[in-house]
């Protein structure tokens, strides 16, 4: 771990760099390493759309090894959607191939005047002209590059027209159907005119102690195989197995979080997908779970491709009041091809539908389209218009917050730090609400996946309507998941394994001796560092650790969670105490304890260190 390719797009220059051991030991790789590099190199006040912003593409020390579910990579940047530090994680096959091509990461700097792509193979890298790719969708781009470079085993990560058009939630697509989805990383690459990164190689990622590593891997493999979640439900039904679970708990956000029950949700559930449109299961590289879907839709929405996932069927389903699986899935295919985050795209369409229902959208902006709840054809049309910033699509492309503000109803935007909330209504899962509010990258269910304990019973079932004890759980998940995102592993490991299972594998792979405490501390460090970056960027703190008024003040109108709101304040005070933060900002004492004196100094210099 530690071999980085520096790409200076302004001058068209590439150079290799090796990171020092201390940095790798303290930040691991992936998200942690990205956060460190951002804090060191990218002024938190930069405009995300500027040459000074960077896109840091990283694998982890376990990527491409025998460790199960290690086929992932991530991107770290200052996000156009949120203005926060932001990491986005992806699966598929591209991450390991970058490792095999001889690099652990790529730091993309500056901006090119004309479109270019990066070709990395067997330890060599070059920038090439991409004028012939500009304007093409992700599938065409991938096909052309594979043809042009002459090897069908090349893996491609690229942006689509949405990224080129600076849509604030444009994503990075790899292997045609996997995404580093949220936050608009695709738009940052679009601004920099880096169209694609193609990788190919045969190098084997190094392991310091092969025998100890094999033992640790075996422990992890056994646990994953034995767990009924990872061994049965996910492989058979994919992530959309959650649709009925979440709906029956009354927390499936419907019509823009106006209620938590969508009576016909089974029409787009994992069970129905498996029955009606699934053609095969797709594993990421090195995965023994294989939860991925490959599906084929019917007229009038014929198509085929990867997905849809749980979040996607929610965003185009309950969030828009639609239950037509073919329309939902077609919109999903289009997002993959155009390079759009499915969660934000579907969510924002729901925002538009509520604004339209309230009479806020001028007819001339819609060019005959009627974005009413349940209009399946509108999902497809609006996705296309958003990618090309056409008419109302230009407004959708700015995200739910700016859309709602523009049309005079900011309270309709269901966002945290500008990022659209995903597929769980926290009025029926208090801890999950705390997780949403305190997420450093905006509305996100995966900083602290509290649904696991509050609904699924993993590791133990807790009362979802209670606030007591939730702050501690949220911190534990946030710190643990920061580690997962740095190793990098798929979070579905966490249904079967946790830090005590990964520490031996990481120690054996890297030669650094990690205890459980060491890794937990690294997780805490990453979380505090991210928060510090945001404090420097825009004065992040308690005022931002909040939820939309609908979730704090409007009781759930029906279903099992009827009458509930999120009781955030109680949980927030305890959360800050546990983190050693004051009013949402890390204190000097806590930062120094985490080895971040230099970060405390930056905060103090800016007058932003809490007393």
């Amino acid at each position, binding site marked *: 771990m530690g071999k980085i390719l520096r790409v200076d797009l302004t001058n068209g220059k590439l150079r290799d760099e090796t990171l020092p051991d201390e940095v790798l030991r303290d930040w691991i790789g992936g998200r942690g390493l990205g956060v460190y590099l951002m804090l060191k190199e990218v002024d938190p006040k930069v405009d995300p759309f500027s040459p000074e912003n960077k896109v840091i593409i990283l694998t982890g020390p376990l990527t491409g090894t025998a460790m199960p579910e290690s086929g992932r990579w991530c991107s770290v940047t200052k996000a156009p959607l949120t203005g926060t530090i932001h990491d986005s994680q992806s699966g598929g096959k591209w991450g390991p191939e970058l490792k095999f091509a001889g690099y652990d990461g790529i730091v993309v700097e500056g901006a090119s005047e004309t479109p270019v792509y990066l070709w990395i193979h067997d330890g060599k890298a070059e920038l090439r002209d991409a004028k012939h790719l500009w304007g093409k969708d992700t599938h065409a781009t991938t096909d052309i590059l594979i043809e042009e470079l002459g090897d069908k085993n090349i893996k491609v990560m690229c942006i689509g027209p949405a990224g080129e058009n600076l849509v604030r939630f444009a994503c990075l697509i790899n292997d045609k159907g996997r995404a580093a989805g949220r936050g608009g990383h695709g738009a940052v690459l679009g601004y920099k005119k880096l169209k694609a990164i193609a990788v190919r190689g045969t190098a084997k990622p190094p392991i310091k102690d092969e025998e100890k590593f094999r033992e640790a891997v075996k422990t992890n493999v056994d646990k994953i195989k034995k767990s009924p979640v990872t061994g049965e439900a*996910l492989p058979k039904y994919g992530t959309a197995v*959650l649709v009925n679970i979440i709906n*029956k*708990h009354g927390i499936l956000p419907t019509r823009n979080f106006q209620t938590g029950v969508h009576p016909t949700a089974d029409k787009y559930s994992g069970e129905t997908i498996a029955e009606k449109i699934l053609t095969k299961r797709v594993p990421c590289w090195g995965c023994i779970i294989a939860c991925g879907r490959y599906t084929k839709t019917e007229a009038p929405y014929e198509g085929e491709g990867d997905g849809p996932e749980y979040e996607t069927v929610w965003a185009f389903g309950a969030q828009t009041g639609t239950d037509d699986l073919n329309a939902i899935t077609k919109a999903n295919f289009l997002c993959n091809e155009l390079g759009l985050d499915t969660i934000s795209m579907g969510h924002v369409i729901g925002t538009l539908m509520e604004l339209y229902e309230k009479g806020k959208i001028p007819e001339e902006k819609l060019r005959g389209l009627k974005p009413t709840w349940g209009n399946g054809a509108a999902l497809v049309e609006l996705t296309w218009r958003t990618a090309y910033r056409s008419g109302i699509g230009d407004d959708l492309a700015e995200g739910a917050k700016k859309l709602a503000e523009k049309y005079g109803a900011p309270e309709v935007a269901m966002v945290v730090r500008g990022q659209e909330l995903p597929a769980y209504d926290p009025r029926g899962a208090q801890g999950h609400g705390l997780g949403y509010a305190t997420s450093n990258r905006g509305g996100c269910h995966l900083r602290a996946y509290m649904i696991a304990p509050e609904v699924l019973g993993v590791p133990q079932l807790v009362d979802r309507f209670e606030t007591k004890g939730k702050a501690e759980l949220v911190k534990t998940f946030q710190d643990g998941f920061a580690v997962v995102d740095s190793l990098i592993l798929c979070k579905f490991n966490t249904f079967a394994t946790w830090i005590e299972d990964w520490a031996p594998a990481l120690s054996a792979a890297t030669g650094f001796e990690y205890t459980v405490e060491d890794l937990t501390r690294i997780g805490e460090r990453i979380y505090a560092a991210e928060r510090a970056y945001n404090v420097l960027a825009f004065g992040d703190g308690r005022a931002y650790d909040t939820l939309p008024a609908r979730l704090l003040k409007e009781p759930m109108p029906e279903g099992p969670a009827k009458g509930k709101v999120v009781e955030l304040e109680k949980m927030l005070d305890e959360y800050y105490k546990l983190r050693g933060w004051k009013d949402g900002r890390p204190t000097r004492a806590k930062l120094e304890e985490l080895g971040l004196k230099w970060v405390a100094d930056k905060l103090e210099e800016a007058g932003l260190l809490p007393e």
Partner: protein
Amino acid sequence: MRVRVEFFATLREKFGKAVDVTLEEDARLVDVLRKVEGLYEEVVEGGEIKPRYKVLVNGLNVEFLQGLNTEVKDGDEICVFPPAGGG
């Protein structure tokens, strides 16, 4: 009185999507489970609901009600989920 029992994920293969169960007044959840062939054995072990199985009565997990002794009334909806997860 009648209650509806709904099944999900792998349980649909064994039990179908849903079944209506007729019971005496004052019935408990355990009575419902025993009325559907094979269901009690599927869901219960050592007198308790198996870990990670979720049984909901009207959307509330019975672990926070009275477990297997939870009262059921006419028209109640009972949902049974095997261990599952996602993102």
